Every structure is written in structure tokens, then in C-alpha cells.
């Protein structure tokens, strides 16, 4: 039973890191995200804590949001809700989480929350095969451009300057 106490302590320590601001991406959520941003330019960045290439994009988003505060960024982790503490910690490290991002504009965060990940992928884009990082640029007219792989910072910045 000493065990159980330690377990509960462990759980409470972990949940202290858990971020209530990371919303579960369920069936239909992606459509709602798009609808909520209608007529506004925004970027959707799909990433994962286990993706070796994704940190480069998070670092870049941190720099760009400092430069262009108020720009709308939606980050979607393709991990599972169980790893929310790790997601939150990673986001906070780049000042993209709920703590420490004051003045860094509007970042909303989501996490894949359906075991049927194929359907979530498909709702995002039927031509996205799950490779990461994957980014979508939505302009104010709703035109969308999808890019796989680490973003080019110069191109991303000029897109933000034109579209903000």
C-alpha cells in the first residue's frame, strides 16, 4: 500500500503538468477549427513529440510569433491525450503553451483523441499520409496550401507578412 501512495503521488505530479488548454481533436473537430477561423488567415501545424523534425518548426513558430504577435496559429499534436503532460511541456519550452506565451499571440493546441487515426488524418486532408511535420496555410479567402516537412522560415515569414 506504500506503493499505492507513491503511485498517487506520481500521478498527481504528472497531472500538475497536464494542460487543460490542450483540446481533444475528435471526429468533426477539424472542420470546427476551420469554421472558427473563417475569413482570417491562420496556420495549422501538425506535429508530434516523437517526430525528430518537428522541433525545428516549433522553434520557428516561437520566433515568428514574437515578431508578429496576434497571428493565429493552431497546433495539433498527433500523439494521444495520455501524453498531454509531455505535449504541454514541449510547447511551453517554445513558449507556445498556456504558460509563458503571454504576448505571443493566439496559439491554440489540440491533440489527436481517437484511436482511429486514419479518420483524423483523412478529415484534415485525404492526401496527407501522416508524415510530420505537416503544415497548412489558410489565407483570408480560405485558400489552403499544405506543406510536408520542416518549413522554410523566410517563406513562412513572407506569407505571414502578406496575410496578416
Amino acid at each position, binding site marked *: 500500500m506504500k506503493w499505492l501512495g507513491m503511485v498517487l503521488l506520481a500521478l498527481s505530479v504528472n497531472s500538475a503538468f497536464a494542460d487543460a488548454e490542450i483540446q481533444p481533436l475528435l471526429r468533426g473537430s477539424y472542420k470546427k477549427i476551420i469554421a472558427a477561423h473563417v475569413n482570417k488567415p491562420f496556420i495549422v501545424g501538425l506535429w508530434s*513529440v516523437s517526430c525528430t523534425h518537428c522541433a525545428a518548426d516549433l522553434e520557428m513558430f516561437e520566433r515568428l510569433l514574437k515578431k508578429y504577435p496576434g497571428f493565429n496559429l493552431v497546433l495539433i499534436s498527433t*500523439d494521444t491525450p495520455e501524453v498531454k503532460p509531455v505535449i504541454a511541456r514541449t510547447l511551453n*519550452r517554445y513558449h507556445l503553451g498556456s504558460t509563458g506565451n503571454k504576448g505571443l499571440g493566439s496559439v491554440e493546441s489540440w491533440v489527436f483523441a481517437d*484511436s*482511429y487515426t*486514419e479518420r483524423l488524418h483523412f478529415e484534415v486532408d*485525404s*492526401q496527407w499520409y501522416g*508524415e510530420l511535420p*505537416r503544415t497548412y496555410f489558410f489565407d483570408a479567402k480560405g485558400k489552403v496550401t499544405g506543406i510536408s516537412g520542416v518549413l522554410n522560415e523566410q517563406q513562412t515569414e513572407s506569407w505571414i507578412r502578406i496575410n496578416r
Partner: protein
Amino acid sequence: MLARYLFGIISCLLLSGAAYSADQSKHHAMSKMWQTSLASKQISTSSVFDEQGTLWLAQVRDGHVLVSHSEDQGKTFSSAVKVNSQPEAVSASGETRPKILLDKEGSIYISYTQSLETPYAGNIRFSRSVDGGKSFSAPVTVNDNHDSITHRFEAMGINKRGQIYLAWLDRRDAMAAKDKGEKYTGIAVYYAMSDNGGKSFHANIKVADHTCECCRIAIAIDKMDTPVIVWRHIFGKNVRDHALARLGGTPQVQRVTFDNWEVDACPHHGPDLSISGDTYHLAWFNHTPERNGLFYAYSVDGGKTFSSPINVGNSAHQASHAAVLSNGNNVYLAWKEFDGEVSEVYAMRSHDSGKTWGAVFKVADTRDASDHPMLVAYHEQVYLSWSTLLEGYRLIALPQEQTMLQKKMP
């Protein structure tokens, strides 16, 4: 259930240690443990037939690789035997699954990737059973570099001589370069061989530098009894196409696909390879603006040149994760598609070593998470071996003749 719960507790205890540490990398490190041990049910399964027609399965539950067998083509299974008595963070999702092979004498060989706490780090583990699957040896680590870095995505092959080969992706050279302040693209592919029935392995041998980091390796044995591997390689600055090498002698790297997919990303989408006689059959995925989706091509000159690639499956439905199996002149391809609601496995067959292909037919479907499809054969009969969250494990015989199939289809 209890075992699952206990493993969760153990994981929490391990994690809580990390949670107290101020070291950010240790915090990050928790991710691996969380993902592999707690996140979701691990459905990735491997299967193989022995010479008597018994089907053997390797699956993962609660940190254990479990082996069971079926005498009736997958209708009923024996109770499962644990390979590793101590639970480990066994990597079993998407591109990684435990592997199972048998030799002529009926010895059973298991390999798997053990995830470590450091992100992307792992060890290549191996175990064998010499008593017909009643018990398994304590797993050993085959990679002879023991740093907490990537040694993952192993592939296992066994030739007629009974030599066991393991090939995997390895970060040791990338780390060495980093320590010297040098640039190093991607990671490397290594292999090790056992010629004493898995009692021990010879020293690790590097096959190639600069591989993609997170795609499975394909392995097949050629007619000279030499294992051949194909993996996603990084050519030039950042082109992620496929390379082939024979394991033995000084490995020569041959480029075998030319789609020029240039991307700084993790595709999580490795190739498959099957060899019959002189013909190499290769299936792969690439995603360039010009050429998108699954492809198949064959080579009759040991992989030096390939037939012009044919597109496989419906790329509007995310055709993905193809398996290829050749049996003499008969070749089967199976892959997964998703139509927005249903995940489906489709297949097609060639009677002439891949020159022409029959009609595509549907084999199975599911409405939740599923493993990559796998093809296994017993004599002439080829089966889809597929594990899904809702239906569990299924072994489905593929029709031997297209006409039979058409009659059966509603």
C-alpha cells in the same frame, strides 16, 4: 487487466522520477514510456507458418512479447507464452512490430525493438525457443553500441543455412559526428549475423550511412542464400528514395527508386521486398508532386535495374503500407486504403512474376485502428495476416484464382 494495470504503475513510478528532475531532456524522455506503455493497445502482429502448417504469432501485451500458435489456420490459438519475463517498453505500432521466424528444425526466433526512456532511443532485442515454443531464452541486446540512442526498426531474416540476420537503423555514427561538430544527414543501417542458431551474434557491421530515421527495413533471402535489404535512404542533400544492399562481404549500396522525394520529414512508410528465383519484387511509397502513392517494380538482375514502376491502389483513398509476397511466378500485393469511414485491405495477384496483374480485390475491412497488412504463405496458399482493434487478429486466405473470387463476391 491486472498485469496491464501493474505495468502502468511501474511506468508511472519510472516517470515520476523523471518528473522531479529539472532536466528538460529527461522530461521529454517520458514521452517514449508513456507512448509505448500506456497510450494505446498495441495491435502490431507478426506471423509465420512452420513446415507442418502451424501458424505462429508474435504479439505484444503489457510489455511482453507473446507467442501463440494455431493448428487450424487461425481459427483457434494456443495459450500465449511470454518471450521476455520482465516487462519492457516493446515498440509495436505502425512501422514497428515484433518479428517471428522459424528454422527447419523448428527453433523459433524472436526480435523486437525495446524503447528506452530517451526519445527515439532503443535496443534491438533477440530471443529464441529450442523447445517448440514452450519457453524462450532471456532476450539479449544485439546492437553492440549501448548508448541511449536510436537502434530501432529491426528486420529479421533467416536463410536456408540457418544463419539469422538482423538489420536495423542506428544513430551511433550520427552521434559521433555530432560530438566532433560535424554534419551528418540521417542515421545509419547496421546488421549482425548469428551462425550458431541464435546462441550469439557476430560483431555489428555497418551497411550504409545516411538513412531515413523512421521507416521500416525490408528483408528477403536471394537464391544464393544471401539476405538482401531495402530501406529509405537519404540521397544527396535530402532526397528520400530507396536503397538496396546484400548482407555479406563489403555491402554495396544500390539506389533502387528514383522518385526524388525531397522532404525534411518522417514519412513513417518503409518498403517491402520479396525474392523468388531471379526476380526481386519491390513495393514502396513516395509522395512527390509528380509521383504520389504506392509503387511496385521488379528486377531480374539483382536489383541493378527495375521495371518501370506501376502505381498501386487508389491514392485518393490513401493507399499505403504495401506488402509483397512472391511464390514462384505468383506474386501478391496487399495494401491498406481508407475511404473516409472504413479502412480496407485490397490485394492483387500476378501469375507471371509481376509482368501483368489481375484485378484488384478487397480482402478485409475495419472501422477503427489497424496494423499494416502482412502476407504469409503455406505452400501455394497465401494469406492476409491482419490485426485490428475491433476484430482482433484475422488470417484470411486469398483466393488462388481470380474467377473463384468473382463468384464469391456479392
